């Protein structure tokens, strides 16, 4: 008979968690901080883990429903673990029992995710829900692990604050972060991005008409993308001052070459047959450009727009490390790091991550709408 390994580990770890001490000694009183017997919720969670683990070890995990039950047990356990940490003062004093319980929870959550990840349904909606649950559950688990590890071991907040603290900081400093966002993203990133991508697009169309320039610029453009262009930031700060203009200038330089190279490549992406076809219609340069070559170049152009959306944000933030007025995401990160307000730094990083993802997502959405004809949007993986 084949035993379900993860459930077995979960059950055994939970059983041991009931036996081993939950928390360490308090340095002052010399007593143990807490016992499982005093915390009914935790005791129930551990018992559930033992029972569910043992049951599924013997029965096997056969269907999506058993997966959901396992996940539910895991989620309940995670909740009780957090309660134990903060309401019963185990934070900083977690002992062997507590960590064994976390191992047990890991086994359950992983097994649960495993089941949902391998779930196959012909109903599109159900499959989509499953496809979303998996990464979300995984992400939540990572956050939980971060929280529990930091709180359980009592890691100093100046080193690594728990996610809950970062979340609180994020919510309570929205005014300041809104100002930072406006300065860095709206003023610097958007203007630099539009100028950089726009000018490169126009230059690319001009360069495309001169084969000599094209052959000279393309290899250079490819090379430039490998260079640490971000290093021009101090020069731009010197030239254009501390405010957003210097950041926009850095972004223009950073985004120019990817756009140039991609657009020029894209303009040559139209097939020979299609070009011949336009020739048989005696179609002129501009007509061919707008009807054939630009549409064919769109996937390349959007590729550059997506690359540049990330580059632009990086450029703005790093350029702010070299000098800025007293507002901006990069400024906030570098000053709060100096003051050891690490939770504020994390909140700002979360903001940057959100902004970056949203920006990229917006470009990708437009791409999907504009180039829905492209094979990459309908090919399914085998």
């Amino acid at each position, binding site marked *: 008979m084949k035993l379900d390994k993860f459930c077995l580990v979960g059950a055994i770890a939970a059983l041991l968690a009931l036996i081993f001490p939950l928390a360490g000694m308090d340095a002052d009183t010399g007593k143990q901080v807490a016992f499982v017997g005093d915390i009914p919720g935790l005791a129930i969670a551990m018992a559930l883990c033992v029972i569910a683990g043992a049951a599924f070890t013997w029965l096997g995990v056969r269907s999506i429903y058993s997966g959901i039950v396992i996940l539910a047990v895991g989620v309940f356990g995670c909740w009780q673990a957090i309660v134990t940490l903060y309401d019963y003062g185990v934070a900083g004093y977690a002992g062997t029992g507590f960590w064994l319980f976390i191992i047990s929870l890991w086994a359950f959550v992983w097994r649960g995710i495993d089941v949902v990840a391998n779930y196959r349904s012909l109903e599109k909606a159900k499959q989509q829900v499953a496809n979303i649950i998996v990464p979300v559950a995984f992400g939540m688990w990572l956050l939980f692990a971060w929280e529990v590890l930091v709180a359980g071991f009592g890691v100093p907040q100046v080193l690594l604050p728990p996610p809950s603290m970062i979340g609180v900081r994020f919510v309570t400093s929205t005014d300041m972060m809104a100002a930072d966002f406006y300065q860095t993203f709206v003023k610097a990133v958007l203007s630099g991005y539009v100028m950089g991508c726009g000018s490169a697009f126009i230059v690319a169309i001009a360069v495309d008409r001169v084969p000599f320039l094209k052959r000279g610029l393309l290899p250079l453009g490819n090379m430039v993308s490998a260079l640490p262009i971000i290093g021009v930031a101090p020069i731009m700060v010197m030239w254009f001052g501390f405010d957003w203009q210097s950041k926009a200038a850095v972004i223009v330089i950073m985004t120019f070459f990817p756009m140039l190279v991609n657009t020029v490549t894209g303009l040559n992406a139209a*097939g020979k*047959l*299609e070009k*011949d*076809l*336009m*020739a*048989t*219609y*005696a*179609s002129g340069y501009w*007509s061919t450009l707008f*009807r*054939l070559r630009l*549409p*064919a170049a*769109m996937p390349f152009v959007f590729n550059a727009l997506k690359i540049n959306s990330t580059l632009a944000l990086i450029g703005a933030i790093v350029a702010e490390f070299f000098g800025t007025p007293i507002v901006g995401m990069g400024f906030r990160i570098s000053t709060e790091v100096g003051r050891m307000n690490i939770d504020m730094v994390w909140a700002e990083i979360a903001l940057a991550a959100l902004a970056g993802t949203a920006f990229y997502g917006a470009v990708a959405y437009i791409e999907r709408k504009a*180039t829905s*004809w*492209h*094979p990459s949007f*309908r090919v399914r993986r085998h």
Partner: protein
Amino acid sequence: MTLKEVVNNVAEMPASKNAVVDIKNLSLTFQTADGPVYALSEVDLTIDEGDFVSFIGPSGCGKTTLLRVIADLEKATGGDISINGVSPEQARENRAYGYVFQAPALLPWRSIERNVTLPLEIMELSKEERIKRAHDALKLVELNGFEKKFPWQLSGGMQQRASIARALSFDADLLLMDEPFGALDEIVRDHLNEQLLKLWARTNKTVAFVTHSIPEAVYLSSKIVVMSPRPGRIIDVIETDFPKDRTLDIRETPEFLEIAHRVREGLRAGHSNDE
């Protein structure tokens, strides 16, 4: 009748009907790093109004190149060629012909209808006119109802039919087709051949058709041009007198087999010259 005589006879035949394509002593040499390649040499040919001319021969015999010269996609390096009495370049600027390529070459970002209206857009026709003509052309190839579909939603045969509709849409009198059905399977190909014949009978267009299939050439044509490679040249021109409304059945008739035999002999002769 020897080969030479056939060629001479054809060249000297009085132009009873109007010559749509008139080629005299045409040659085309590509300069490559490995020395010159003689793609076409001493080609003499007349295509009359209403003709269905097939070009057949092994690969490298210059049949596609000849078609491309007629379409002004390639420039001849010697000899004379005129389309409707003017140079190929002028003919192209007059939009004197529709060209169908080996592959459908539909633009993936345009719907079938918008693909068919593409040449009309370039010719700056009004929107209503474009829609009307696209509708008519799609009807000719039996693709009405697929206007709003995108190319990838159609089968290979349907895509090729759409590309034929595109070539028909601006109603040029000359249709140039470069192995249009080469990539399709036999059954689809038979069907499209039948449709093409019907279209030809109905519209009285002049068709120049490149193929490497002997039955296809014999079945479709009123005139078969047999070519041979290195240098690409015409070695035989065979006229057939099947009616315009012929059906697939003629492929079992003795006349059909006889002509097919002659084409095959011609191809073989061209080959032995080469080896």
